[in-house]
């Protein structure tokens, strides 16, 4: 289980809904915050969702490395508190990709809403 909702911790099926959105979540956070490091991203997601959503290290770092390799993210390395810290930020390509992915996600949520709760639409 890569990314899981604490409320649905025992249901593997529900985590699949979040799994596909991990990179979009990361990109959205970087769009809002400029640059962030791994631990900061996990804590930010926890904070925003009030602990409901927990991104695990085993899912986050491979996703960050993949986005970096694709040219969506770039890295800045700094010496912070006696250790190296790797900051991730969106590239130009990443910024436009974020807009597309968010639009896609919004569309997905809208469609899901129409199926799950047709009265609300």
């Amino acid at each position: 289980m890569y990314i899981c909702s604490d409320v649905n911790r025992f249901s593997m099926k529900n985590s699949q809904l979040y799994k596909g959105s991990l990179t979009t979540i990361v990109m959205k956070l970087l769009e809002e915050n400029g640059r962030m490091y791994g631990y900061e991203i996990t804590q930010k997601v926890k904070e925003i969702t009030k602990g409901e959503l927990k991104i695990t290290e085993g899912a986050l770092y491979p996703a960050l490395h993949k986005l970096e390799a694709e040219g969506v993210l770039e890295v800045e390395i700094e010496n912070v508190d006696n250790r190296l810290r790797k900051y991730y930020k969106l590239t130009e390509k990443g910024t436009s990709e974020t807009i597309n992915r968010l639009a896609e996600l919004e569309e997905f949520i809208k469609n899901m809403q129409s199926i799950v709760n047709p009265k609300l639409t």
Partner: protein
Amino acid sequence: MKLNKNQIQFIDGYLQRNDVIYVDIRAEMIDHIATAVEEKMKVEDIDFHEAFVSYVNSNRKEIFSMNKKTWQSTLSELKNYFRFFLKPKSLFAVILIITLFFIFRETMVYAYLKEDLWFCFLLIFLSYSVLSMIYFYGIKKKRYYFIERTNIVLSILYWINLFLFKPFEKEEYVSDVLVIVFMCLFVVYVLYALNQMNKFFNSKLIIK
């Protein structure tokens, strides 16, 4: 409360003892663990060792999954390599190779090159492997995943070279198309590897 150098070295040593061999992967893991431990020390008002043991015990599986290499890492490296073909310098190299082929195809230079192509490549592969081993194992005494993952493509090219040009069955005809395709794959790999090296040496990941 921020961790001091000895405490950071303690985390580094712990990861090394647990087979996290690559310096660049370890650097990111150290920062992650150190930040989490610092927060634990602050929130729970405990000392470094207590916070470290507690954090590692409850997050061990997740921490070490950061060091896991899967077939997806290999696939992603191959994808990056093929994506590099679309860069202007790669396209230029491909056009140059094809042009040089048409200029020299009737000459003895090309005939000799074609005959001993497998050996030339083998020599380049072996020289590169030996030199990088001397540098990273002997001089630096450190291994970097960022560098070693580019070798995945090199190993594939090495085996293609041996199988494609069949050095022990020289009488067999070697197609010109195969020679050109392999030359392009190889030259673009060299450009790709240089690009990755350049990125690596310009980053702060190289720890002196």
